[in-house]
């Protein structure tokens, strides 16, 4: 059974409530609450990191201290000030010895958790489930630690490195050292600095020259332990002429408190390389009164370093109480291409301020932004994007389309694009609309025998089609169902 199929079925059984809200009761090893240099040293020591990485973390930590009280406040999201000394910055499932040598040694409780999530860690399940479809290699991150990575050996035959970043630090230090922080520097912003100081784990991908990665790579993130944040760090490098598609998914237990997720994702595409990064984000959104839920404050950025390279972001954002996320592309290589396809839903009391930045630096660079925002309930949704054409980026082209769909009169949909053009040979076009599901559309569907929720789900899926089409096939189905479920209770 594919991960998606199972997820979809789990989801179908759901009655609109958050289905991933279970807590797995396993022993965890945690760092003391609070954040100081000792904690950073503790995390680094736990992970047996080399000296240079510890120094790198400490530098980031000092930068973070320098940014104290400089949390970004410009976003259209509202929440009480976070006390960063209240959280725990490291939680790992407790293991005996040095960690699992194979899946058989992984805590069965943990495996059952992933089963519930629909993540098939056991390769045979994957194999059994994906007849006809592409294979999926999964790296699962549980709280702060990567617990298992599948298909590693098969990938290694092709020269593709796919492993937890902590393992990459040990086995491929030259690659990590060269690229870590090269796209998102430690002091980039408040949350990136925090992540750089305390990041725990995440995925590392290196695709060598000329290799087309034979399967979808995937990471599944789950926050489990109470009072913890998750600070994962993902680094993907596509060497010259290579190609890779990567997908991440996220869930968290249902809790009354807010939990912080501050990840950093860095992508590097060298000459002629292509990276496709897809996200289905379904963190716990909080309840209808706005209690609980994840604060999703994420810095994602890709650099098209080489000529003719391409980076494509696709995101389906249905969860989180608050989303602050702007997957961006630096178009440095001539003729490089950046894409951003996004569907974001805010229902209940969710707040999402999300968008992208396309920075055109090289000649004849192109970017496309398609953003679909859906607001329902008391949700607030903001598209915030930047398109900048630098003085040397002659022939740059951008097309941006942002559409907002509002369901109900207590939600909000906002569009805040920044366009900054410094070359006369550039063509930049932006358009945006805001509308609601018209009575005529609904009437038509109902007259054909659809109930209101099915009708809304269908109309919303049509509204988002341009984006959903960009998802890898296996995940598109899940995403469609997710849209319907996220909007349950929004009409009628």
């Amino acid at each position, binding site marked *: 059974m594919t991960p998606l199929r199972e997820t979809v079925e789990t989801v179908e059984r759901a009655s609109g409530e958050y289905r991933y809200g279970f807590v797995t009761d396993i022993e965890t090893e945690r760092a003391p609450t609070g954040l100081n240099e000792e904690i950073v040293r503790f995390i680094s020591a736990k992970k047996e990191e080399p000296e240079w990485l510890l120094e790198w973390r400490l530098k980031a930590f000092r930068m973070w201290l320098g940014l104290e009280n400089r949390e970004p406040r410009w976003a259209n999201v509202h929440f009480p000030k976070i006390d960063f000394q209240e959280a725990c910055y490291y939680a790992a499932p407790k293991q005996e010895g040095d960690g699992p040598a194979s899946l058989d040694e992984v805590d069965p409780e943990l495996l059952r958790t992933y089963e519930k999530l629909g993540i098939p860690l056991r390769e045979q399940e994957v194999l059994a489930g994906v007849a006809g479809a592409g294979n999926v290699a999964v790296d699962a991150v549980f709280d702060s630690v990567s617990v298992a990575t599948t298909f590693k050996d098969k990938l290694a035959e092709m020269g593709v490195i796919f492993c937890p970043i902590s393992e990459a630090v040990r086995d491929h230090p030259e690659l990590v050292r060269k690229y870590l922080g090269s796209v998102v520097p430690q002091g980039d912003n408040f949350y990136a600095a925090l992540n750089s100081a305390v990041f725990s784990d995440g995925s590392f991908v290196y695709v060598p020259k000329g290799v087309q990665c034979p399967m979808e790579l995937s990471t599944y993130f789950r926050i489990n332990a109470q009072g913890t944040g998750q600070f994962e760090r993902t680094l993907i490098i596509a060497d010259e002429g290579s190609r890779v598609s990567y997908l991440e998914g996220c869930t968290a237990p249902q809790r009354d408190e807010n939990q912080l997720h501050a990840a950093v994702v860095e992508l590097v595409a060298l000459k002629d390389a292509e990276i496709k990064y897809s996200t289905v984000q379904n963190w716990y959104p909080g309840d209808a009164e706005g209690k609980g839920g994840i604060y999703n404050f994420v810095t994602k950025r890709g650099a098209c370093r080489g000529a003719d390279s391409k980076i494509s972001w696709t995101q389906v954002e249905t969860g989180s109480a608050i989303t602050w996320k702007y997957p961006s592309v630096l178009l440095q290589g001539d003729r490089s291409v950046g894409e951003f396809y996004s569907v974001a839903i805010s229902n209940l009391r969710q707040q999402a301020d999300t968008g992208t930045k396309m920075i055109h630096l090289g000649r004849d660079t192109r970017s496309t932004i398609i953003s679909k925002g859906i607001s329902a309930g008391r949700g607030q949704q903001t598209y915030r994007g930047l398109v900048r054409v630098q003085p040397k980026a002659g022939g740059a082209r951008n097309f941006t389309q942002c559409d907002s769909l509002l369901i109900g009169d207590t939600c909000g949909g906002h569009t805040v694009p920044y366009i900054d*053009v410094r070359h006369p040979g550039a063509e930049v076009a932006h358009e*945006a609309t805001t509308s609601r599901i018209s009575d005529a559309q609904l009437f038509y569907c109902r007259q054909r025998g659809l109930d209101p929720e099915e009708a809304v789900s269908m109309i919303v899926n049509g509204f988002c089609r341009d984006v959903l089409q960009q998802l890898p096939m296996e995940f598109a189905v899940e995403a469609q169902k997710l849209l319907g479920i996220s909007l349950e209770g929004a009409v009628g």
Partner: protein
Amino acid sequence: MRPSSQPDTMTDAWLAGQRTAFAACRDSLPGSGTPWVDALRAEAFRQFEEDGPPTARIEEWRSGPTAALTGQVFAPAAPDGARAAAVPAPYLEGPRHRLVFVDGRFSPDHSDAGEPPEGVRLTTLSALLAENPQAARDLIGDPDAFAEERLSRVTDRRPQALVALNTALASDGAVLLIEDGVALAHPLEVVHVARETEEPRAHHLRTLIALGAGARAHVVEVHAGGSAGVWTNHVTDIAVGAGARLEHVRADAGSETAVHVNVAHARLRAGAAYAGFVLAATGGAVRTETRLSLEEPGADGEVNGVCLARESGHIDALTRLDHHAREGTSRQLWRGIFADTARGAFQGRIRVLPDASGTNAALDNRNLLLNAGARAESKPELEILTDDVACSHASATGELDADALFYLRSRGLSEQLARALLMEAFTGAVADRIAHEGMREFVRRLVDDRLHALGSATS
């Protein structure tokens, strides 16, 4: 001027300069001695100090000409009748009412108010404050309204420091009051002439326009004269009564080196219509704001503009259209052409508040960059808080269409003429929306003049 690496010291000096200026001239400003006017000016100055000068850290000013504004300390111009002013001939052909202000003060010699019809009061701020402070109070000064207006802008985070400074220092301005059901048949032409100056000078002007229910008027405000070292801070406060209609043109016809800030704030009652046009043309610095509150159902707002900047000019155009009530409609059409090393910024926001269902609003901004070195920024915003709306915005930036140029050249037009023609068409679409023929002709002439300057600068 201090180096820009010390912005705080610079703005401190600027603030200190404004303090000195306020202390020096507060007793000679119109209405001085009337308790409520003194109190209002003092309160406004206090608010200005509290807010501080505009900086790029304030979102609404992130692309604004803050350095040009706070880089030198402009002192309010003292009355100085000794020097003659070069006052341009009337801009509008045909019958008109004309008020002329020189260096921020009314100049009866150059004005020709004509004979406004019954029910129309055409005067100046200084005259109004001298003879009937109460009437003026209703327009600019009701402290409650002032507070309310500030509160209604909470989401802007920062109130408007320069408007507060204007309230504190306004030396004069045109006043047009029209009673219910009265139409001002001929347009009103208000000309502000700034004389050339050696030392940095500031002119704080306040225009007040109030139309009763069903009234009609056409108003043109033109800025002429000026030179580097002149800062004009002009606020136009407008109230359009139920079912009334105002057509309002603001245009730069003067120096291309001055620093110019103008703010128009209009409140629209039920079924009222406001049609505004802005021409910003400069090699200096211009900040133009248009803020419309569609406060009651069925109001209609239109805000269009043409921005032309050359040399090291900087234009920052801002619009804020707030739909507070249902069934409102609004349109915005903005075109910018930027040459040399000029920088043009446009930020336009459509905001639909929770009660404004049935709103229909659209915004369209297009910019042309004529050469390398020029820069265009655009920030069209939608802020929608209810679902029954149809709102859209579009923004595009590029160069002159190569195919269109080729077509015109294949018809035998010179490169320069072809470019001029395309630019004229690009801006003409906006100017053509001015309903009043005389005003439209005036704007087209002025735009053509400025385009010519722009074309000759680049070819």
